[in-house]
């Protein structure tokens, strides 16, 4: 290159500083990598890294602490919202999030998530829902779709025997302590962008001391679903949203502001 030529290269994509420089253990086509990146970007953009304490869970994302460069504490299966309660109450100046899967949050951890939400704990819950227990080999989760075959519902989930998928984020949204609840997806770049906006809003709600916030992110498990990564993205975009519609479920901060404006 001639030194006379001006360097016109421009960085348009880089690793967020909050994301560690290592390859993940996640399977090809898994959504965790995308969600990790969104979280890391927001921690950077909102300059939250130095005061963040992450609360891990049990499932495929048990190693999230290897990839997100923030202080992290592990939780027993399902207990992350209780652990996060302890962290946030003991250190009110910290920014605290949990990162949980659907088996962790909507089955074994149901009591902990409901009561953290009911108390309006100032924590942000990142709830990655792929409708299956991925780490243990693809068993049925409380969120598994009707008819979906898993290793523990080999004939397909049937309502009469296995019950119905739990729309837990809608359930939580009923509680007045929940300031913000939304459901996004990683099925295409546009939805990824919308999900990032939801996560940003959830984080802002915590920073505003407004209450509990949760973003459910519909995600994939190609291995557990028995699909290729492409097929699983198509399935996510076409089928999963039939049971779990996307959008903001409740934003009480906005509602309060709106009603104050009307008054």
């Amino acid at each position, binding site marked *: 290159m001639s030194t006379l030529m001006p360097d016109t290269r421009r960085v348009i994509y880089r690793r967020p500083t909050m994301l560690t420089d290592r390859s993940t253990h996640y399977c090809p086509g898994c959504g965790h990598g995308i969600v990790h990146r969104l979280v890391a970007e927001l921690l950077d953009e909102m300059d939250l*890294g*130095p*005061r*963040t*304490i992450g*609360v*891990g869970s049990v499932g495929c994302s*048990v190693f999230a*602490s290897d990839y997100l*460069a*923030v*202080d*992290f*504490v*592990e*939780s*027993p299966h399902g*207990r992350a919202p*209780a*652990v*996060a*309660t*302890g*962290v*946030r*109450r*003991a*250190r*009110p*100046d*910290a*920014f605290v999030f949990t990162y949980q899967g659907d088996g962790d949050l909507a089955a074994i951890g149901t*009591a*902990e998530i*409901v*009561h953290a939400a009911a*108390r309006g704990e100032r924590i942000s819950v990142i709830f990655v829902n792929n409708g299956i227990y991925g780490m243990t080999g693809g068993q049925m989760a409380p969120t598994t779709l009707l008819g979906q075959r898993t290793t523990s519902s080999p004939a397909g989930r049937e309502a009469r025997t296995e019950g119905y998928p739990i729309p837990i984020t809608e359930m939580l949204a009923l509680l007045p302590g929940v300031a913000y609840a939304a459901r996004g997806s990683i099925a295409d770049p546009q939805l990824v962008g919308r999900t990032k906006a939801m996560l940003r809003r959830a984080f802002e709600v915590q920073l505003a001391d407004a209450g509990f916030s949760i973003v459910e992110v519909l995600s994939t498990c190609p291995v557990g679903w028995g699909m290729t990564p492409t097929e699983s993205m198509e399935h996510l975009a076409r089928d999963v949203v039939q049971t779990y519609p996307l959008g903001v479920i409740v934003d009480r901060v906005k509602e309060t502001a709106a009603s104050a404006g009307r008054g």
Partner: protein
Amino acid sequence: MAAVAVTERDPAVAAPEAARPILMKGNEALAEAAVQAGCDAYFGYPITPQAELLEWMARRMPELGRVFVQAESELGAINMALGAAATGARVLVSSSSPGISLMAEAMSYMAGSELPMVLINVMRGGPGLGSIGPSQSDYFQATKGHGHGDYRVPVLAPSSIAEAVALVPDAFELAERYRTPVMILTDGVIGQAMEPVVPTYRTPAPGPRGWELTGANGRPPRVLRSLHLRPEDLEGHNRRLQAKFATIAEREVRWAGEDLDDAEIAIVAYGTAARVARTAIERAREHGLRLGLFRPITLWPFPSRALAAVAPDLRALLVLEMSAGQMVEDVRLAVDGRSAVFFHGRTGGMVPTPGEVLDVVRRAWALTVPPPDAAGAAEAAAVCEPDPFSLLEAGAWAAAGRPMPSAVGARNGR
């Protein structure tokens, strides 16, 4: 509120008149001792017979600007404690037996992640929902691991309300020095009784820091976890934990002896049972039976060496428990067949009476001879065949260097 009460040790919380004895309920005394010890955060859930502890903290902690949360369950409470402990806060949790069972999971995680915390168990009768009466039937649970995996936690057993008050700051100190959960094992009698106490409150200095989560501001992130997926890593972690437990076992043993100098039989008892033993010992001495008391204060580490050193000067040991026989196993391990060990226990919320203890003492006396003459030992062993179905006489023993009498062996399926 900025970076919380973790570093605040407000002298203004000192009790108004510390030198005068005041009448205190055990649960409330334990709670206030924790407040005075600089407890930053308390998490609990109602259960009898410890509910007054939760209620005391519900009033005291918020008035001092500290953390109090009544959780949705004991699972919630102990995991909140895990989170608060991870930030370096001084944390207390209390419950009673069934609630303690629910906490086993997080105790294992906290031992594995090396998080300090004090857990008070005000024991009630079990198994299951059992009764709300006092009991010591959680000894195995407390001393042999509680949750899954290879770990131990220090267990402190007060036998009076005053001692309970004194042990609370010690428990925090142990927890922080060794970065481990510590259990205070007490029972419904001590929790519910009222006694005059001269409060001897103490606020220990914080233990070593540099591990706690504060947000990775200007330093590399810290991760607190028990997960070590590579077997090589986990074994290394376990070796380190075991070395720590060995250090605790070496340095932190506590016990108390009473009237042991001229004793012929020592009652081995802790907590409320030790108080019954004390009355029995007084009465026995009025009748010329020289009894003494060996009272473990740390149940883990168990004062095995001290007991083994005392035992040869005695004709027998009588283990008294409010259980079907749990600590008696540690006593037998400690004397390793070299002393006669008798057992008396009551369960279900029943407290043994000094009179029934004396009955067992008399029987033990008749069946044993003073040391060092062990000639009558084998003979006594044959007579003293243990009946596993009788709590009054569920005692077994072996003479040093002699095979166990055949009748006993047959009963035990040898």
